[in-house]
């Protein structure tokens, strides 16, 4: 197991290095830089001012030098300065991380706590009216875009209660805190809940047909024990994989959800930074997201090994 962990950590570092190069090159390949965008706002381009600004921001240097400058800074904990706000990138990024982390965590919690039990119920009652109803719910979850669902929630909130949640970093009551995070978390987590439900259902159905389940029933084990102890334990492996992958995909859903609910998290910030070609913010944020995804994948693999002794690699 130890050798496996060491190997995985090494691979993680290689992956992150590769990602850093790709992010850096892709960002420079995208047409236009911050200077073009700033002059776009001014309505004209003055070549002399443009050259001055490019020099000021270090954009006139060769791309390799720019890359080394970034990575060198990163290794020393210096993320550079935002081109737009002229504040340290770390100062801009750091306060936004907990906001998105809470939102993503709640969305994943919602996805697992709704998706897994409903998936099990659906599989156990296969072919029943309840099963069909749950399948319709999961299908709608996969079909409804989160921005549309978010807007629908906001419109319903305004027309039914005459108010709407606007992000407040210091909520005064639990209810306010709940509306700030829970409602958008549901909007963004609905899709993953539906996916989790479907995967749990199909995985459970497959397991429930196995010989050892029949044996457990023959030995007189209760339905609950068969379903939850024998079947679910084995059916949950692909579900964990899906939740792990969803954690990576969640950022896409969070971008629109943070925009619709006006939540100042990193997802919306990333899009704005991209619009301005604010390289220090974009490359550090994408790198941060990459680290999270790689680490989540690593944790999923570790969970796999912990749950299923057959796949304890290296042992």
């Amino acid at each position, binding site marked *: 197991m130890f050798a496996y962990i060491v190997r995985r950590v090494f691979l993680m570092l290689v992956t992150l290095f590769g990602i850093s190069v790709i992010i850096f090159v892709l960002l420079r390949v995208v047409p*236009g830089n911050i200077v073009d965008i700033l002059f776009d*706002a001014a309505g004209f381009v003055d070549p002399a001012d443009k050259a001055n600004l490019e020099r000021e921001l270090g954009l006139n240097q060769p791309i390799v030098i720019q890359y080394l400058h970034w990575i060198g800074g990163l290794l020393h904990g210096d993320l550079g300065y935002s081109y737009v706000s002229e504040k340290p990138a770390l100062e801009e990024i750091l306060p936004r991380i907990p906001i998105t982390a809470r939102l993503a965590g709640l969305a994943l919690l919602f996805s697992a706590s709704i998706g897994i039990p409903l998936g099990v119920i659906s599989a156990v009652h296969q072919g029943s009216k309840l099963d069909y109803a749950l399948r319709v719910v999961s299908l709608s979850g996969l079909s409804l875009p989160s921005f549309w669902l978010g807007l629908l929630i906001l419109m319903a909130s*305004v027309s039914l209660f005459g*108010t*709407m949640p*606007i992000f407040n970093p210091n909520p005064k009551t639990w209810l306010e805190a709940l509306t700030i995070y829970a409602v958008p978390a549901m909007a963004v987590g609905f899709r993953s809940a539906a996916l989790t439900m479907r995967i749990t259902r199909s995985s459970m159905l497959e397991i429930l047909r196995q010989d050892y389940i029949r044996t457990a029933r023959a030995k007189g084990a209760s339905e609950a024990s068969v379903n939850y102890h024998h079947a679910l334990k084995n059916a949950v492996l692909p579900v964990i994989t899906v939740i792990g992958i969803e954690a990576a995909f969640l950022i896409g859903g969070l971008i629109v959800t943070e*925009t619709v609910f006006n939540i100042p998290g990193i997802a919306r910030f990333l899009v*704005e930074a991209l619009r301005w070609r604010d390289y220090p913010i974009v490359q550090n944020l994408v790198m941060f997201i990459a680290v999270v995804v790689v680490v989540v994948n690593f944790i999923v693999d570790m969970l796999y090994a912990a749950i299923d002794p057959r796949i304890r690699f290296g042992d």
Partner: protein
Amino acid sequence: MRSVQALAVAVLSVLTIGDVSRAAEPKSGGIFRIYHRDSPGSASIHEGATYSVNIPFMPIFNNLVIFDQHIAQNSASTIRPELAESWAWSGDNKTLTFKLRKDVKWHDGKPFTAADVKCTFDMLMGKSQQKFRQNPRKSWYDQVDEVTTNGDYEASFKLKRPQPALLSLLASGYSPVYPCHVSPAEMRTKPVGTGPFKFVEFKANESIKLTKNPDYFKKGLPYLDGIEFTIITNRSTAILGFVSGKFDMTFPTEVSIPLLKDVKSQDSKAVCVVEPNNVSTNIIINSSGPPFDNLDIRRALALALDRKAFIQIMFEGQGDIGGTMEPAPDGLWAMPKEMLESIPGYGPDIEKNREEARKLMQKAGYGPDKHLQIKVSTRNIAVYRDPAIILIDQIKSIYIDAELDVVDTAQWFPKIARKDYSLGLNLTGNAVDEPDQSFYENYACGSERNYTNYCNKDIEKLFDQQSEETDLDKRRKLVWEIDKKLQEDVARPIIFHARTGTCWKPYVKNVTIMSNSSYNGYRYEDVWLDK
């Protein structure tokens, strides 16, 4: 009986008057909450060219002079003193001298003096050590030879030749006085002003907060405790926020006509106004090569336009037809209707115009069997894209088959600058309803914002002639003549001038939306909340 009735009416009248006077008495306190349409690139008004910067940051500053904040139509007669107590032109109209107030302090406690005026305008003219990152209105001061001071409280603008328009340019929201002791870089992030509100914080994509300046030199002002802009880029969310009472006002002039109806249907008490904003939608033509180096084809294009159709489709009829200068009655320099309609393409008979256009196209070698193939380039923003699509549809009638070429915002100006386009759909906003600003910026030979490189030395002489003219009537006639020639030359065909909406809650008092500028009406020093 009659006397009893009379008494009742009198009592009622007194009560009503009493109510009105009580309601009209400004109350202090409260935070004025507005949503902001996007995150401005910086807090520096001098480096910005969009009212995304003016609206939230104008309350921090003062100008030497300012357009009266409660007269919707900006004009020379509505200019009021701010940091200047008074102003005077010299006999030869070449020196404009301002006597300055002595009781003004910057928000950091340092005194305001004439040196601040000099260093602000020296920077704008590019004459100082410290430079702006961008200086989009440098050309406004082309006729200023130098700014001099006489002691701490007098500053003079010495001109190369008379330019009466200078005072209007100085009265724009784009002309605040900056402090000498704060660097341009700091002004982008933590602006220091003398104005009614002090800067608190600017969190990109989140909010901009201003607080009351208790030491404001206008005693008793401002009434508000602060102003808070919440940045909401999603328009639907922002409007829902206004309707549900999270905001007291929408972002000024950002509510489209269909959205305005939506707001009124959900919040019937909301006060909504629709005003022109001195932004024209126009066509930029690359006449440096074929096919538009042929004047006949350019004229045919101008003749093919059905301006009313654009306004009907895009704004449900709420728009105006005019030349370069904003149409009357809100615009001060617009050509009379008869003069406008005498310009090719402005006549009311569209079919007749298009028949003439087809003849010109045939003369240039095109016809039913040989259509001209071009691209119409524009930015990937709805207010650009939508009229471009209508334009493509309209020019089909004169044998032009056009394809929409949507350009990323970052690439728009570099593309225009390298002349890599045939036709472009463009929007031009005028900061001040003032011919000098419009003509020199958009049509003068060599100007950076003259995207089409239109250059006509004869018209340029007329630009100078009108600019020097101190007789208002004579100047107006010259301006009409110039505007007519620009349209006849198809320099930058103007399609329409838009109108847009602003809504606020009924308890918001003393807000005036300017009718001939989108940049000058956001000081908010005497706005108050009646709640």
